[in-house]
């Protein structure tokens, strides 16, 4: 059953009279509860695609529907976890989540219900101990946890993650990947995640969407990852299916669609 439908989406940007085509004829159907990774070289329009789904940018042609309803503009039912966390530095951890909760549930929940909901989401990312700290006082991984809590607290229909672990060191990244898998298992969330990390894509996703190089990037291939959940990175390290998926992605990225420009 299709939950999110992306249909023949094109995206062009007009800048200083010059038209540049970023995405060409992108179509994808996503089921409820599915975890999708979008992978590709930098500049291939992955972030543009995520922004289109979020409604932060408008499609040039084609359409995006969530539960049969056309996406036209951003909204809390499509919450975004930003690469650089985007927490407001003048608010505490609690207040940052509260900003979202007060706006989304201001009319439907009472004050104490909202407080419980905020704490429940901070618990989910194991950050309730730092609720009165400001973003400058906590580590990068912790900030990203709070960013995830803020997004989850909007009770989104779909969670959009824009290279959520890109700015973190490898160990912290592994911790957060596990936390995200755990949360996804508990809540059954639908997720779309942008990444350029092959292992991350294989470990976390049900399907991996591989983009060709821009300009006019398309979906080159969609690779299903038939691995049982819960997944354990240590057990999977030697798993045949895991290695085959990994190889398929690597071959796509480095053989068939090598990044031609010097980075």
């Amino acid at each position, binding site marked *: 059953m299709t939950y999110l439908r992306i249909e023949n989406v094109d995206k062009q940007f007009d800048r200083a009279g010059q038209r540049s085509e970023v995405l060409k004829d992108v179509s994808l159907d996503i089921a409820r509860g599915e975890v999708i990774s979008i992978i590709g070289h930098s500049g291939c329009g992955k972030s543009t695609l995520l922004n289109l789904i979020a409604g932060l940018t408008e499609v040039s042609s084609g359409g995006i529907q969530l539960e049969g309803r056309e996406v036209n503009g*951003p909204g*809390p039912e499509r919450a975004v976890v930003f690469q650089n966390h*985007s927490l407001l530095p003048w608010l505490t951890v609690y207040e940052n989540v509260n900003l979202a909760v007060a*706006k989304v549930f201001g009319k439907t929940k009472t004050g104490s219900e909202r407080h419980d909901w905020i704490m429940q989401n901070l618990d989910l990312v194991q950050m309730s101990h730092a609720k009165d700290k400001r973003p400058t006082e906590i580590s990068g991984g912790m900030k990203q946890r709070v960013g995830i809590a803020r997004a989850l607290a909007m009770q989104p229909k779909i969670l959009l993650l824009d290279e959520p672990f890109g700015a973190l060191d490898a160990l912290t990244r592994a911790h957060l990947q596990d936390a995200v898998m755990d949360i996804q298992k508990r809540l059954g969330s639908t997720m779309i995640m942008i990444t350029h990390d092959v292992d991350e894509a294989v470990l976390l996703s049900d399907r991996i969407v591989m983009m060709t190089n821009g300009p006019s990037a398309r979906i080159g291939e969609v690779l299903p990852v038939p691995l049982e959940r819960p997944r354990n990175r240590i057990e999977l390290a030697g798993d045949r299916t895991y290695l085959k998926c990994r190889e398929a992605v690597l071959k796509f990225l480095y053989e068939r669609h090598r990044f031609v420009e010097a980075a």
Partner: protein
Amino acid sequence: MSANVQRLAPATMPDAKAAAEVFALPTPATRPGSWSKTLASIAANVVPPLVVVALILVIWQILCATPGASLPAPSQVWAEAGELIVSPFFDYGQGDIGLGLRVLISLQRVAIGFGIAALVGVTVGAVIGQSIWAMRGLDPIFQILRTVPPLAWLPLSLAAFMDSAPSAIFVIFITSVWPVIINTAVGVRNIPQDYRNVARILQLNQVEFFFKIMIPAAAPYIFTGLRIGVGLSWLAIVAAEMLTGGVGIGFFIWDAWNSSRLSDIIVALVYIGVVGFILDRLVAAVGAFVTRGTTAN
């Protein structure tokens, strides 16, 4: 692995608390040491300026003590205007009042004029900062207007208001509003796109965006503008009062010049300088308090 983290997290919390308590105990022991340290650092900051002031007074005394010197020496200032220094708040009636009271009257005008300038400046700056075209259109005009000296506005303002009190306030307003507008606009333009995206996803309306994102995000810029603005308004009030009369500190200087009380003028100058310094530090302190945590990422 995530299960491990979950089990660890609650366990580490009491530890953290215990550590905090243990930390609290040795503080009384270190207090005398830290006290003498603070005293030393205060002394290090206070002694040099005191020495310099003493030196200046001595040189000034030597230069002006000769008979026929055109300006009074410090000893003469003390003899003639000592009362102004010692008792700032006397009130003998008929407008013969201490410099402290005069400063308060001037400050009241500054408070009104600068208060209006702050409100208008932040609002107008926020609107301009939101629109590229408003910025392009209005910025050159503001850049020109902000260089007009305060007193140049006074004749126009007198003609418009037909009264000296509102004219003085208007001159303060028009002098101090430009840096507030310009800095606020720059601050609003520099709000990171990420914060705007957060606001869009949360579907914040204009009013919520203004108070919850724009003002706090632009606060460091706004306070820079306010700090420049308060300095300019203090410059303007003295000049404006010299011409419009009344009982403020500016008029006192003009009055003292007309009756050749040079010592009084010197004392008044020191008052003005000290009050201006305090105003500047006050706005800076409020800014530091309000914007704590806003900068840096």
